[in-house]
């Protein structure tokens, strides 16, 4: 298996009548999926003239058409550009401009947002609408029904760029992450090795497919192994719990913010959801207490933690037996992934020493689109410098400590905000906290904390500062504390410190 076309064709060949995708009351077997993929691919060629190397944007929530479109685009040697449905019209415009995108497949629910992006001057030559009735927009359903002539076979290379996925921009301007067929298949392989997905698995995907975790570590490995995808267009606690019960979902991957909300519902427990056999934290560090709570709520199933990033999806796994022993670790590198910690001079740091986490392997992206300098800044000798700070213990377990770019430099003393956040979150009145640097005329930067209180709790700023003074070294203590209703997060729940 060297290309993504091999992946769905293998499923079509090996278990044609097995259900591949479910969305609401709609289902597709592997045979039907293959048929739709061929038809849409043919439509893209015959009606739009899509060629190898072209970029086709995909702006849609989790739906059956997303899966079909993805495989149809990459089958042609073109590149799929999934766009996070939760980004603003301005960000959509910036992303489409950056990629010079000429083709767009857009879902009706997101048409108003795209229309607003168009008003900002974005031009797309061809548009295909999913459940969208708008003048001048071709219909996805009609294209499938009309087209029966398969496109001429394309000589696909494993090194062809399959995906162009824009980073969530937690460190600044969005950059287009390019992943080849090889990269995507390697990420899927890592997930299979690390998480142990099985052919009978049914996964509920509530994270957006436009995100690398849902796409490369959930959808792709499940289809590769012959499992079933249950797609949810949005995350809603009771809806997800009902879906787990109704479809006898066996595995699920979620970000910490989702897990927090799920744990607040008493139905999210082993005895209520007996079909679940695997839960995986994804995409952001999970608070160790929450992780232990999750494990205690599901004592008899596998609860895993993992680490990955858009540029290198699925790098580590924290095995279930370690959930209560090392709940603060993201685990060990999965077979096929190399990892190390480098200091600021690029020297390998010994076990226990802090530094930047670096990753090497076939799953690591090939570079940012048209940004050789940005690529060179993170890629050295095949190693990806992740920008994540952490350490590796003598047993090979990795621990995250924050982002290098988030470091606060207080009078020459650098520290990661997470240290302060953890301290504040230890207060019983606090639901969550985020810390960022704020300018100080004497110290350069000092910490400023944004605090979300639990319902019906009161706390004043002085109490927070007093608590930090008692538990943190002096330069880490926040100078200001602001109480807020919510923290700014991106589409997958990652904290956006730059928006604080």
């Amino acid at each position: 298996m060297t290309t993504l076309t091999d992946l769905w064709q293998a499923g079509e060949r090996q278990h044609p009548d097995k259900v591949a995708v479910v969305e609401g009351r709609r289902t597709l077997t592997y045979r039907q999926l293959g048929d739709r993929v061929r038809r849409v691919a043919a439509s893209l060629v015959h009606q739009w003239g899509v060629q190898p190397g072209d970029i086709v944007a995909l702006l849609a929530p989790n739906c059956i058409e997303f899966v079909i479109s993805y495989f149809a685009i990459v089958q042609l040697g073109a590149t799929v550009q999934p766009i996070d449905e939760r980004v603003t019209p301005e960000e959509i415009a910036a992303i489409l401009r950056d990629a010079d995108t000429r083709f767009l497949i857009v879902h009706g629910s997101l048409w108003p947002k795209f229309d607003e992006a168009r008003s900002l001057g974005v031009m797309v030559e061809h548009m295909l609408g999913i459940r969208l009735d708008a003048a001048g927009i071709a219909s996805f359903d009609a294209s499938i029904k009309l087209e029966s002539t398969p496109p001429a076979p394309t000589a696909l290379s494993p090194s062809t760029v399959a995906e162009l996925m824009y980073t969530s921009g937690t460190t600044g301007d969005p950059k287009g992450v390019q992943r080849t067929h090889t990269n995507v298949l390697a990420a899927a392989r890592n997930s299979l090795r690390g998480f142990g997905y099985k052919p009978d698995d049914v996964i509920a995907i509530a994270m957006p497919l436009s995100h690398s975790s849902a796409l490369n570590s959930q959808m792709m490995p499940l289809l590769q192994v012959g499992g079933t995808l249950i797609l949810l267009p949005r995350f809603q606690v009771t809806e997800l719990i009902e879906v787990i019960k109704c479809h006898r979902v066996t595995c699920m991957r979620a970000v910490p913010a989702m897990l927090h909300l799920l744990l607040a519902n008493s139905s999210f427990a082993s005895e209520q959801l007996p079909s679940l056999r695997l839960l995986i934290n994804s995409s952001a560090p999970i608070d160790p207490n929450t992780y232990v709570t999750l494990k205690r709520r599901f004592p008899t199933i596998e609860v895993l933690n993992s680490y990955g990033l858009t540029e290198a999806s699925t790098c580590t796994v924290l095995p279930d037996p370690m959930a209560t022993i090392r709940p603060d670790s993201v685990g060990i590198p999965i077979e096929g992934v190399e990892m190390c910690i480098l200091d600021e001079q690029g020297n390998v740091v010994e076990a226990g020493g802090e530094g930047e986490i670096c990753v090497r392997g076939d799953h690591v992206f090939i570079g940012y689109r048209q940004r050789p300098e940005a690529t060179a800044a993170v890629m050295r000798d095949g190693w990806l410098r992740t920008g994540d700070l952490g350490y590796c213990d003598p047993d090979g377990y990795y621990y995250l400590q924050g982002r290098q770019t988030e470091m606060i430099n207080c009078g020459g003393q650098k520290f990661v905000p997470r240290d302060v956040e953890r301290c504040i979150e230890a207060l019983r009145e606090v639901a969550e906290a985020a810390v960022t640097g704020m300018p100080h005329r004497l110290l350069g930067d000092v910490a400023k904390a944004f605090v979300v209180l639990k319902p019906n709790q009161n706390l004043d700023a002085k109490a927070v500062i007093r608590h930090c003074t008692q538990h943190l070294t002096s330069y880490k203590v926040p100078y200001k504390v602001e109480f807020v209703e919510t923290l700014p997060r991106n589409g997958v729940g990652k904290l956006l410190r730059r928006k604080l």
Partner: protein
Amino acid sequence: MEYPDLHQQLISILEDIFQVELPESIDDLTQDELEEWDSFNHLRLVSELEDTFEITLDDKDIPEMTSLQRVKSLLQRHGVGTL
């Protein structure tokens, strides 16, 4: 601006920053006597005084604030309260 309870206010600020309990009757306290009075907390004291009394301290004043009495004198020079 008048701050009739300036002494008490200063004690309260020092207690908050250094996380120590100070007797109200304390007349003076020097930087050397308090381990918690490190350079970072010293600058925190500067910021807290500026915020509380709505003044801007000159950079050259900052190293001189090595005791409670010196802090009081400095505040007086900035027209803060009567002691």
